């Protein structure tokens, strides 16, 4: 199981409270986690990454283990602590505004 923390607006949209726990088969990567997340919650398609290109939306960030993983390749392995569910994978609405 992978633990995913969604931003508040996406928790509301998906109708979930707290962390989401997802089974991910194979290597645990950004792409694998997001594929599993969107399969479980189809209404999140297009909100985190583009429908067609699958590129991360500009004001969305990915954090885990106190690192900003937003610019990592989507198929790069996530930290072991995420893969073992010791730490959550955080999907964050970027700071915007003044």
């Amino acid at each position, binding site marked *: 199981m992978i633990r995913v923390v969604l931003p508040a607006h996406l928790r509301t*949209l998906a109708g979930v409270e707290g962390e989401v726990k997802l089974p991910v088969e194979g290597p645990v990567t950004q792409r694998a986690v997001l594929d599993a997340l969107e399969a479980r919650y189809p209404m999140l*398609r*297009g*909100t*985190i990454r583009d429908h067609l290109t699958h590129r991360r*939306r500009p004001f969305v960030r990915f954090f885990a283990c106190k690192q900003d993983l937003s610019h990592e390749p989507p198929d790069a392995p996530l930290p072991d602590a995420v893969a073992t569910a010791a730490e959550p994978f955080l999907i964050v609405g970027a700071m915007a505004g003044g």
Partner: protein
Amino acid sequence: MSGVRLLVGTRKGAFILASDGKRERWDISGPHFAGWELYHLKGSPADPNRLYASQSSGWFGQQIQRSNDGGKTWEPVGNKFAYLGVPGTHQWYDGTPHPWEFKRVWHLEPSLTDPDTVYAGVEDAALFRSTDGGQTWLELPELRGVKGHLWQPGAGGLGLHTIVLDPSHPDRIFIAISAAGVFRSDDAGQTWRPMNRGLKSPNELPDPDAEVGHCVHRIAMHSARPSVLFMQKHWDVMRSDDAGESWREVSGNLPTDFGFPIGVHAHQPDTIYVVPIKSDSEHYPPDGKLRVYRSRTGGNEWEALTHGLPQRDCYVNVLRDAMAVDSLDSCGLYFGTTGGQVYGSADAGDRWAPIVRDLPAVLSVEVQTLP
């Protein structure tokens, strides 16, 4: 007893304001979709409990929400708006080619007869249609073939903001784009023609009479006389008596002919309403006086409606989708402001009162007249 339901979209959520036919006391629910921008909500004329809402966010993009119970509960439906084929380019602000990129849905227009069919006008300008209640969306791409490479965004973006369905010609659709103009299809969106003859934009276009490129802000039709259209253009209030084939100016004695919304009385096809705004760089009423102007002659002769509206120190704007007309016997009129007020009149504009004063900036107001 009959009643009305206002669907109000704001910068930070949606609100539903409901009243009986007297329109004196209002129940207010919301915010729905708190924190999101609600560019537009609209109910199906064929089933008033079926509502559609355009919900968007700079962070998380576009959502379409659907209600089957008049807005008590909502469910997200399809949000994939993919241009068909290779989308090509339109003009950018500096005149260079710019690829078409989907940004948001500005306007939702449900079919007059089928609750599951709904049109979406989007930025960058294109028209989409769903026939399954919003689950999937398909572009009507021929529209962008009508000199789309010459379309250029207005200051607010290249938005397709107006969709008018003709009740007497089921396959006829009018749409309007800032800043491209009015286009009409007579075959349910398969082919389109620009309908901008008579529009003049001497300060905005090198050719003031260009076939496309005019900054049309809103068009309105009375269902009993669909060949007559009224338009609030960037500057100028216009009228067409031949279904958009030609336009003539009817600004008449307005204090300024800049503005955004335009509406038609429910029972008097020649009674129309605008909200004059000072200028394109000063988006507030002239002299700090919030005045709706009414013409009972289809334009040219206008009277100011001020009773109950602020007549000093008022510097709000009224956006293009933020005025609506109900169809009760005594026609009601409603508008929302960028200052968060929603005003209503139950007597065709003679007297006004605020329904609510302190919402987030209002982007759109629609009204449903309920049995």
